[in-house]
């Protein structure tokens, strides 16, 4: 293995070590949260709701919950990890190493991506045991989920870079991310909304992400799949390029 490969794997291992060391908070809590959503919205409320677009209500919401698990965990992992390291200045040990901005950014991004992926997979396995969740279009599901995870991982890095205190991170999570996800149609179909809310939903980017994942699982979508994929690829590329530029400049990392 070359020095650069060892370096990159160590940077990545630092991220995974962090979230495994506090796994009750980083893996246990999100799993419990998803389980509670399934119980409350699926089993309790869902028993009162007829089928939605040809599937049981609980099956209809599972794709959105899995996407939400990946997105929120990728985001919160990266924003918190980066801010904590900036706060403790422990990031200086990495910044004074030969690691390039690309290596630093990729390792940090993948940390959150992997944590989100683990929570999403465990959510899927648990849901699959309890409910018969189909997978109709794996060729859309996998790239869709990967792109969503990568997008929110990058967003987490960006917010972590900009943040100067923990309140900054929780602001983005509570006042921007959560409303976008909840109003993006995790728990309902936008076609059921009265105007102007149905039209407004179409301006929410998360709506298209949920559409992709839901199509992958149950074969139903209210959005254009090809366009959504293209939009996500462009958004991921733009965000990654922005973060790379900021890392290269040492934005809020180097004096």
């Amino acid at each position, binding site marked *: 293995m070359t020095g650069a490969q060892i370096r990159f794997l160590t940077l990545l291992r630092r991220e995974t070590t962090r979230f495994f060391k506090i796994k009750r908070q980083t893996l246990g809590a999100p799993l419990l949260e998803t389980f509670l959503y399934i119980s409350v919205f699926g089993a309790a409320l869902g028993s009162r709701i007829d089928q939605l677009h040809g599937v049981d209500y609980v099956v209809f919401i599972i794709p959105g919950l899995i996407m939400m698990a990946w997105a929120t965990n990728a985001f919160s992992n990266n924003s918190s990890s980066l801010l904590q390291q900036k706060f403790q200045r422990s990031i200086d040990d990495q910044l004074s190493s030969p690691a390039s901005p690309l290596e630093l950014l990729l390792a940090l991004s993948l940390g959150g991506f992997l944590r989100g992926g683990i929570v999403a997979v465990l959510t899927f396995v648990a849901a699959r045991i309890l409910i018969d969740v189909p997978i109709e279009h794996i060729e859309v599901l996998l790239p869709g989920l990967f792109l969503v995870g990568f997008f929110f991982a990058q967003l987490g890095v960006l917010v972590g870079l900009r943040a100067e205190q923990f309140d900054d991170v929780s602001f983005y999570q509570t006042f921007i991310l959560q409303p976008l996800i909840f109003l993006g149609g995790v728990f309902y179909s936008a076609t059921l909304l009265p105007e102007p809310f149905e039209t407004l939903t179409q301006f929410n980017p998360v709506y298209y992400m949920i559409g992709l994942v839901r199509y992958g699982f149950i074969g139903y979508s209210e959005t254009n799949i090809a366009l959504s994929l293209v939009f996500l690829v462009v958004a991921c590329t733009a965000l990654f390029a922005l973060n790379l530029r900021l890392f290269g400049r040492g934005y809020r990392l*180097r004096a």
Partner: protein
Amino acid sequence: MYALAINELVKRYPTGTEALKGVSLEIEEGEFYGLLGPNGAGKSTLIHCTTGLAQPTSGSIEIFGHDAVHHYGDARLAVGLAPQEPNLDWFLTIEESLDFHGGYFGMPRKDRKERATELLDAFSLTDKRHEKTRFLSGGMKRRLILARALMHRPKLLILDEPTAGVDVELRLELWHYVQRINQEGTTILLTTHYLEEAEQLCTKIAFINGGEIVATGTSADLAREYNVTSLEDAYLALVGRGELSRAHVPVADA
């Protein structure tokens, strides 16, 4: 070839503060070099520019002939930094801190394991190797920071006030250790506020003030330059506080 060659280094912060105003400095390979100056003189900024923690506005920095600013890979491999403030990763244990640092510098696993064992022993940290860094005492953190700086066997070791706030025995222990590695060939750049420390350890000293190197030489050279008899008095003359010289302080009755 110089271990460290800094030429016309300027660092201007976005606020407009010019922390370094065209600093030039050359440190010979194998030297034990002291950088002294009052708070805010530019010592830490110079160290941060050298180690990649700050981006110079202009000027050049070479470490063993390698550009440390733009093509920094080889330059950073040659430098170990023990910073002024403990900056340990709270999530890691002592042993992991050394292991991860070695990994950041591309050391293979077997080499990391052997080097970490050696340093844990040298700094009396073996018994606490599995303790998380956040629960360590100040002295233990200091030991670990120095061990971490040495993990990848740097040819240039930068010590930014390494003995600030540590007890006498640890200070002397660190002196012995850094003197030994200097004799074994490691070049050392030391900043300190303890002038007797600089006098005892450094073969050459530079005074920095207001972002400029104002004098360099041995301890005796500097005393001569300021027309006084000790390094401490030369320093007091530099900062314009000659009236504080020990020569004016009466000795307490026994």
